[in-house]
């Protein structure tokens, strides 16, 4: 018999319940495990004279594999974070804010192509989990 640890929601029987929605915890299911989180600012200029320009920041994840990660960005310094990728196109400004991982870093990119606008700062909020992306 396989041993399990199961904690059901109130009113549900941990021994017989099979719907994961009715369980608080079950050792049958993996969970995301926090590893680290933080903020990183990346300065960029909206006006690139029409040239495709990358502005990038990096955070070393310190793992010997690429981890599960998720990133939000605040591009207006308003405290309003939206999920990455955030892709905007307005008048003469094309902007993309995204993140990717390689074997060493989580990379945070502001991709600009515009003929107007100003210098700004994107504030990225990242969450890195211990879970391995097994690719």
């Amino acid at each position, binding site marked *: 018999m396989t041993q399990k640890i199961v904690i059901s929601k109130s009113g549900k029987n941990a021994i017989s319940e099979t719907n994961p929605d009715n369980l608080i915890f079950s050792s049958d299911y993996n969970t995301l495990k926090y590893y680290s989180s933080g903020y990183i600012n990346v300065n960029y200029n909206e006006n690139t004279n029409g040239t495709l320009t990358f502005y990038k920041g990096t955070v070393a994840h310190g793992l010997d594999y690429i981890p599960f990660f998720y990133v939000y960005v605040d591009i207006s310094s308003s405290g309003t974070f939206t999920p990455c990728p955030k892709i905007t196109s307005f008048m003469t400004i094309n902007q993309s804010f995204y993140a*990717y991982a390689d074997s060493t870093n989580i990379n945070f990119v502001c991709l600009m192509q515009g003929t107007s606008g100003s210098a700004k700062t994107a504030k990225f909020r990242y969450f890195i989990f211990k879970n391995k992306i097994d690719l």
Partner: protein
Amino acid sequence: MKIKVTKAGYNALTETNVNNYIFHSDYNTFKIVKSGAGNFTVTSNSTESKTITHNYGTRVGFMVFFKHTNNRITYMNSLVDDSSSTSSLVIRGIPPIKNTANAISFTVSNLSGTNKTLYYQYYLFEIPV
């Protein structure tokens, strides 16, 4: 009865801030109910619809990570390009990546003149949507 595990330095009998708990049976955990990995061949100079069949049977929250041709990994329809490297594969945002009860579908473009392999790993979460 409750089962509680605090972070180091906190008292499980008195702690009231949920963020100071590793586990607390009053709060649901973010369960991964299914995951899997695979790959597709994307034909040169083409835009193709792809389907990841998971057969979970219920429409739930999901996340897909892709390994691009430059060995960089990102999720959903995010990009992996910078000044040092670009991927010849683009996961299209329109139509968006979507998950039904049994399959995740998306559109990918191969901008190069040779066939490319796109690797993926998906996660399904407990959350019904």
